């Protein structure tokens, strides 16, 4: 049976599933319920200085739904904890005492002044918490006050605050990054330079969920006005995965532990992030959509997959996908695939044809021998995958690797060896030119 236990910066947890700093980790009742449900750890809802912030009393959340109201994306304008610091600290202490085997990380956001950090860190250490996470992420509200993403967008500030934290506490320091930045490697490098033990990402993405076309204001609205909020949930997973992969494979930050966050909803999402190098995964929206019980699916799902693959521990597959993540310029330009339609599975909806005809390469015939039949024309197919992406039948269209013969589209042989853009004759910057066959 696969072992899910995790040791992240010396912080141990029975499984890699942590609840991200957010409403699910806001208070004693929530967190104890979560631990009883099986969560491996929590990052406590971000603490700030007293007096506590106040939240709006209008709607804080907005959502994007699928046809059957499946929640695809969530956005929020909630601020950090709105409860007094002392109450939070006392509850953190109590939970840690009751659940010593679970990870207890405390998220913090205080002003960018050394004395603020020097003041709060000993108080947190006193609770017995396992580590701290610096919230440099919130894109709304707090950023207007010079905190959250306003810090996270300036690598120099990240480095400076990380350094203060390392100075004032013995606890491991995790820097939580904002995705609202052009190049995620820059803040990660800064965190590392400041001495941070790990990064966690992503926090929420700046977003406006929609426009109320009757009121002519963003939706949801607070008394007729709306503001941008942080986007999260299944929709953001690909963005988070890309950012995690950037940090995992960056020469400067390689090996820096990562706690991955963003759209993790199932065991498979978690496995993907771990394969991309994550030490633990954090979940917020999935819990806010379905409740804490979903962790049971995540734990059992990850275990059965690992058992089927013969992985005894998470370390056995952690980071295995990082080496295969590369730049476009290194992709093999001589690797040729052609779409293949399984006529037994095809239900003749014609979507592959019309998308290829209207928007791609006119490579799928809709009628063959006078009957409705969808067949790929190899002479036009560039192997783009669009048809397979839109086909409603799973496995009906596959991209078949061509190894023998000649591509009727290009007239080039299929079995040419690996060659990439750096050496391509069309690349003005390439030094070594390999002539086209």
């Amino acid at each position, binding site marked *: 049976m696969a072992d899910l236990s995790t040791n992240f910066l010396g912080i141990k947890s029975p499984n890699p599933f942590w609840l991200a700093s957010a409403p699910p980790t806001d208070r004693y009742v929530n967190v104890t319920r979560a631990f009883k449900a099986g969560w491996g750890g929590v990052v406590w809802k971000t603490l700030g200085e007293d007096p506590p912030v106040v939240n709006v009393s209008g709607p804080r959340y907005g959502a994007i739904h699928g*046809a059957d109201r499946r929640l695809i994306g969530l956005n929020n304008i909630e601020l950090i904890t709105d409860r007094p610091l002392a109450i939070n600290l006392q509850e953190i202490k109590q939970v840690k005492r009751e659940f010593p085997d679970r990870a207890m990380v405390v998220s913090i956001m205080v002003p960018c002044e050394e004395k603020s950090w020097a003041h709060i860190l000993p108080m947190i250490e006193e609770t017995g918490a396992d580590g701290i996470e610096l919230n440099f992420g919130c894109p709304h509200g707090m950023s207007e006050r010079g905190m959250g993403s306003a810090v996270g967008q300036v690598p120099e500030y990240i480095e400076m605050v990380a350094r203060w934290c390392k100075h004032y506490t013995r606890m491991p320091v995790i820097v939580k990054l904002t995705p609202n930045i052009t190049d995620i490697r820059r803040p990660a490098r800064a965190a590392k330079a400041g001495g941070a033990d790990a990064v966690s990402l992503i926090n929420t993405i700046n977003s406006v969920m929609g426009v109320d076309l009757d009121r002519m204001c963003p939706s949801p609205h607070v008394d007729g006005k709306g503001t941008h909020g942080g986007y999260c949930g299944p929709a953001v997973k690909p963005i988070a995965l890309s950012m995690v992969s950037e940090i995992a494979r960056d020469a400067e930050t390689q090996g820096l532990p990562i706690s991955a966050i963003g759209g993790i909803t199932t065991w498979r999402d978690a496995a993907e992030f771990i394969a991309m190098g994550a030490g633990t995964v954090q979940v917020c929206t999935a819990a806010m959509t379905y409740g804490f019980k979903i962790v049971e699916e995540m734990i059992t799902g990850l275990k059965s997959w690992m058992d089927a693959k013969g992985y005894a521990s998470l370390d056995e597959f952690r980071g295995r996908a990082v080496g295969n993540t590369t730049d476009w310029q290194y992709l093999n330009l001589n690797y040729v695939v052609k779409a293949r339609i399984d006529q037994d599975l095809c239900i*003749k909806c014609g979507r592959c044809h019309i998308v290829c005809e209207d928007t791609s390469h006119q490579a799928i015939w809709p009628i063959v021998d006078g009957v409705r039949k969808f067949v790929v024309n190899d002479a036009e197919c560039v192997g783009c995958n669009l048809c397979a992406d839109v086909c409603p039948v799973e496995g009906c269209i596959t991209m078949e690797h061509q190894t023998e013969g000649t591509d009727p589209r290009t007239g080039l042989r299929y079995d040419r060896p690996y060659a990439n853009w750096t050496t391509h004759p069309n690349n003005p910057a390439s030094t070594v030119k390999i002539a086209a066959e």
Partner: protein
Amino acid sequence: MAYASDGIASHRLPPDDYVRNFADLTPPLSRHEATVAADRCYFCYDAPCAQACPTHIDIPLFIRQITTANPHGAAETILGANIMGGMCARVCPVEQLCEEACVREHAEGKPVQIGLLQRYATDTLMAEREGQPFVRQPDTGKRIAVVGAGPAGLSCAHRLAMLGHGVTVFDAKPKAGGLNEYGIATYKTTNDFAQREVDFILSIGGISVETGKALGRDVTLTQLQADYDAVFLGMGLAGFNSLSGMPEFAQVTDAVPFIEELRQASDKATVPVGRKVVVIGGGMTAIDAAVQAKKLGAEEVTIAYRRGPEHMKASQFEQDLAKTSGVTIRHWAVPKSFDGTDGRLTTVLFDHAPPGLNGPPETVAIQADMVLAAIGQSLFDEPLGRTVALSGGRIVVDAERRTSHTGVWAGGDCVFGGQDLTVAAVEDGKQAALSIDRFLRGAQALPQAAE
């Protein structure tokens, strides 16, 4: 109380049962149900469902309009191709038309619920918007006479009015709607939908309806041709085929008038029905008569059909509906005679000759105190006075629905080679209107297409 007495009687059931029995057969979709059902559509290229629709409604488009919370737009898409989209959504045998062709029917045996989605869109439009989405083109000054206010006639009239022509519709009955009003099963068109739809169609303007005016009795074809620029015949089938050579009993009647009485009764409890009913026939009318007899409280209802299940004109869905409603269907039963005492019917005798039976047919006796004949209707052609060519007792038309008589078009059940469906009648009316319009505008007449 007539609950279990023999003979033909009304009030066989407690009053509440009638309300339940004649309620909507398939209740409409809610907004959320419609959104979920619509999401199953793949928006097929050159969609097979739309090809299978006799009126060629752009089904993937209207379904997509539902998914984007635009039911009015969806309804316009539907009604632009089929002005009776509301009724068709209720009565079309979709399992033989669009839903049969849906790729998801082939893939999973579960088609997109096209009929119910169409109903959702059209009901929503009619409930939320006054009038209709179509406006008339400038008046052409041309006048067309339409005979019959059924689906064919009303569809033709509506399209002509849209195109700017003036239309007078003559119908022998007191109400417009044809079989929508007098024939379709009660549980398929509840809440007086037929009349609401007639009002909706007529709201375009430019159409006057003269009910109680029969061709042959109150007007003649010659007269109409003299007074109008063109004539459209959509007179349906006013005659019934009879069970010839059988003893006569008062308890043996035609199914269509029985259904008509039921449709017109404001209190269904007042409609008399037998305790043991035999319906003779194998089409939609037979099924409707049998199911409704059962719903009126008949204890035993049997459909006797002279051939096998695969030969029945009623669709599988309809046959299943009969069975689940408690109707027994007997195949290979050819009516032979009636028996009774003191003029009261007691028994129907059949020759039962299933395929593979050696020797002469067996005689089967089924007890009955009421027999409904649903063995087909026929064109009552007297009013036409040999002006138009007939085939198989019905009017011959070309692809444009032109009869052999210049200036006279025809469509719906009264023409030869049709499908005898509401939706087919609507298409005939629409195509005839387009042809009449071309004719009146002096466009070059298209070559007569072979059908």
